[in-house]
């Protein structure tokens, strides 16, 4: 694994060794202890470091056109950040398509600042302008904290993306026969010790879709929804979903519409 930190390597040893020596404690007490651990981490979420950087990037004059993002239209009008996150993905008439936050940031970086969107999309997560998008995502999300998801479904293309997204969610493939639904379509399931939200319900989609972007303590990175979906498909043993591609946006619409009414806690902190 490329993200082999000391802690990870050692943690793997721990799983093989000392976990086996843990008393076969009732699963509930383990769950309680883990809940306590998460509570201890909730205050002081390093995602705040990305929020600060993103806010700075939003206002900064950058790129070949020497412009800031301050006129970027995220759906609520040019420059309006507050409340935009909980209404995305949505239809944009200037590009004539449904876009999620990351797709839309690419558009603004290209039209306002003169960056090459295709090149930025190809950049690996956590590098170069892709890393800058991650900070911008953290900032934009933070400006809708505690607001309820309310994705529009008035444009026919938005309804199409919901319907196709739902079908893509159940699409099985690859050598393991997995779909998103393999792990995320029943209540109360776990993979190893990790709780799996049922993303087909309002509550589950609110908890799942509604907590990305998030800081991941396992690797010290801030993961956006695109990064989350990308890694889900990696673990489904699928090929590589292109950044901001139709499949990823359609899934965002399906999950976001399903989550309607749930309050956003993004950027959250995750295992």
């Amino acid at each position: 694994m490329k993200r082999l930190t000391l802690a990870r390597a050692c943690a793997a040893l721990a799983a093989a060794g000392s976990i086996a020596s843990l008393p076969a404690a009732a699963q509930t007490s383990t769950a309680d202890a883990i809940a306590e651990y998460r509570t201890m981490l909730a205050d002081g979420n390093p995602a705040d470091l990305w929020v600060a950087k993103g806010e700075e990037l939003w206002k900064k004059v950058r790129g070949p056109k020497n412009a800031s993002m301050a006129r970027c239209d995220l759906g609520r009008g040019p420059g309006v950040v507050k409340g935009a996150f909980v209404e995305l993905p949505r239809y944009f008439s200037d590009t004539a398509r449904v876009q999620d936050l990351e797709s839309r940031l690419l558009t603004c970086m290209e039209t306002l600042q003169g960056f090459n969107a295709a090149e930025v999309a190809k950049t690996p997560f956590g590098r170069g302008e892709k890393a800058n998008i991650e900070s911008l995502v953290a900032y934009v999300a933070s400006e809708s904290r505690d607001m309820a998801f309310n994705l529009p479904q008035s444009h026919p293309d938005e309804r199409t993306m919901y319907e196709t997204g739902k079908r893509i969610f159940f699409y099985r493939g690859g050598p393991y026969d997995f779909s998103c639904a393999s792990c995320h379509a029943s209540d109360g399931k776990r993979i190893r010790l990790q709780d799996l939200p049922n993303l087909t319900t309002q509550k589950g989609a609110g908890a799942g879709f509604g907590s990305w972007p998030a800081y991941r303590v396992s690797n010290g990175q801030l993961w956006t929804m695109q990064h989350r979906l990308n890694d889900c498909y990696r673990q489904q043993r699928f090929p590589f979903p292109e950044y901001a591609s139709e499949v990823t946006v359609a899934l965002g619409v399906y999950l976001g519409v399903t989550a309607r009414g749930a309050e956003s806690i993004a950027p959250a902190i995750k295992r």
Partner: protein
Amino acid sequence: MTLKHHLSIAAVATAAAAVVSGCAAPRAPAPDYDKMADAMMKTSFRAQGQAKMDRVQQDPLQDACSSATAPPESVTKKLEATQLATIKPPASGQYIGDWKSGEKLAENGRGMTWSDKPEADSGGNCYNCHELAKSQISYGTIGPSLYRYGKLRGVQNPADPGSAAMVQYTWGKLYNAKAYSACSEMPRFGHFKVLNEKQLQDLMAYLLDPKSPVNQ
């Protein structure tokens, strides 16, 4: 193709009816979301590492099991029969391997992703979804608990002829779980060559060997 054909006929029929009754223009047929979703699956991905584009090409079973509701029994029965026919017994005739190697496989959740080395063996991924030995508290619950799998099924000696039916069923389940439940979430480890014969034998031992921690 057939479906589309039917739709256009229906549209013509509706249009004719509309003309006759003097109503407004007919409504367009409902969009074919299934087809649109399939098209997106083909254009939104690219090959990466060992994960090539053939992986979004569905086989008939994957296609039939790709919606929120399970297909009717008439369909699942046929699928199960087809899958049952794929199961091959071990070439060596030997069903049971080494439970210690099986345990390592059960713990291992790696393999076949675009970031895994193509030549590296896959893990069994068992603990992701199943409880097995009591000593491992980090287990998933997507599948049923397999704690005391062999013991609860009365397997005292897997080599005993009395255990043959259970041994062969378990082999079949690992080889192609879809033979017993068409839209099961469990991968077809033997059928899709995720695991080789030796690995399957070792997992068999982990489940069925009376000395395995699973059966303590």
